[in-house]
């Protein structure tokens, strides 16, 4: 079994979950509480990766952010390399690709918080930030946990984008799903079998853990 690939996938998933926790909370807050009339546009953009095939995202990263296009050249000038074939490339792709998996449950959690408690906090003089951290977030941890765990798990399971822009470099972009694909193509069914089984068990355990301990989050997720 390819432990290097498993370790890489875990590292990628941890980074993605961390970034999405930082980025997802404010986006979810805004999506939940904003009254801007064009808000639905932002909601649609956030949800795009649920519908878009990974090939579309992969294509844009490979070609649009490649060295032949403006955006790619800007990126190259700042970071010294283009996105494809790098860990940061996978990170950018995965964050975009898992965004709705973080934002939607978190937002559903926020929506479940009793509006009167939030307003009470404000009238008692607590700032919006304090209200967020001391009232809203504690009352919606289930949604936040679900969002983070789902984006973690979704990143572990990512395949199409990585296949398109990863370049299959051991230890850098050869994730566990790519490794399984390689083993199947090379007809190493034994290895593929073992790795696939590990992933199957992992996914099952993660989902059982979420749904088992977080029934409330589940019902919120369904409502969204």
């Amino acid at each position, binding site marked *: 079994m390819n432990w290097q690939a498993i370790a890489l996938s875990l590292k990628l998933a941890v980074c993605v979950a961390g970034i999405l926790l930082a980025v997802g909370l404010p986006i979810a807050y805004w999506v939940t509480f904003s009254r801007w009339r064009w808000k639905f546009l932002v909601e649609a953009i956030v949800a795009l990766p649920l519908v878009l095939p990974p090939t579309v995202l992969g294509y844009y990263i490979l070609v649009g952010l490649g060295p032949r296009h403006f955006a790619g050249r800007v990126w190259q000038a700042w970071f010294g390399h283009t996105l494809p074939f790098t860990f940061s490339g996978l990170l950018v792709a995965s964050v975009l690709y898992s965004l709705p998996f973080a934002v939607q449950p978190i937002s559903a959690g926020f929506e479940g918080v009793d509006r009167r408690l939030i307003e009470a906090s404000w009238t008692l003089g607590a700032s919006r930030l304090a209200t967020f951290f001391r009232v809203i977030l504690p009352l919606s941890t289930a949604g936040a946990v679900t969002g983070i765990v789902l984006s973690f798990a979704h990143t572990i399971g990512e395949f199409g984008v990585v296949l398109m822009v990863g370049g*299959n470099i051991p230890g850098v972009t050869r994730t566990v799903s790519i490794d399984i694909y390689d083993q199947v193509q*090379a007809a190493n069914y034994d290895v593929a079998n073992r790795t696939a089984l590990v992933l199957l068990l992992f996914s099952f355990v993660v989902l059982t853990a979420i749904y088992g301990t977080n029934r409330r989050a589940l019902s919120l997720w369904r409502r969204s």
Partner: protein
Amino acid sequence: MNSIRTTFALAVLAGLVLVTPFRVARAGNAVSLPQAAAKPCGTVTVAAASDLTYAMNEIAANFEKATGCTVRLSMGSSGNFLTQIENGAPFDAFFSADIAYPKKLEDEGLAAPGTTYLYAIGKIVLWTRKDSRVDVSKGFSALRDPAVQKIAIANPEHAPYGRAAEEALRQSGVYKVVKDRLVLGENISQTAEFVESGNADAGIVALSLVLSPAMKDKGRAWNIPENLYTPIQQGAVVVRAAANPQGALQFLNYIKMPATAALLERYGFVLPGKVSTAGKP
């Protein structure tokens, strides 16, 4: 709200239902226009290695014109097709980039016995975009330049062209230098795409792709000396579970005809009968 949505969905469905028969009818017309006397053989489903992408499209079009059959082409990695056919993929004929795969299918009883045919020998080239600073005319030594950050080859674990590329790099002694700069394409087309999009600075790709009309003017190539790698013997076979074995056989025979052989040669393939002269000027 719900009723609006339902109405919309129904409208879309109705649209699809209305449009579908017309499309089918059109496809039907195209099929029923045989141009030659040979008896039409229906639809032949062909899986072909991605180094054949351009050549096979041309061959299939010629075959369709000559026979009135329809060819349904799937291009991809030979290793992937092998796995798929072993697991019951509905292909009639399989054009592999490595003759070992058709032979394996025959050994496993999954190919029509005795149909494995060596149709061409593939060549690899070092390739770079036209606007690249890499001077491929210097051969592999051009890759020693640290400015060459990424070098694309096909995955040597399962792509025949990748295996040849790795072997050539090892034989020429640059493998250790470039090892950490290699990026692996899933098949040889993707490898070429990595170079063509500029994401890789250079790559080792199939000569057949570089000579195709789509790529011809986009880059510069250096022919990798043939003594650096084992010849890429490409084999085709009729799949035993073929839905259309007759058509598959007809297509395989068409590949053996001189005109088709000449076309393959034009795409940089060496023909099996001319193996002995390969590599000599």
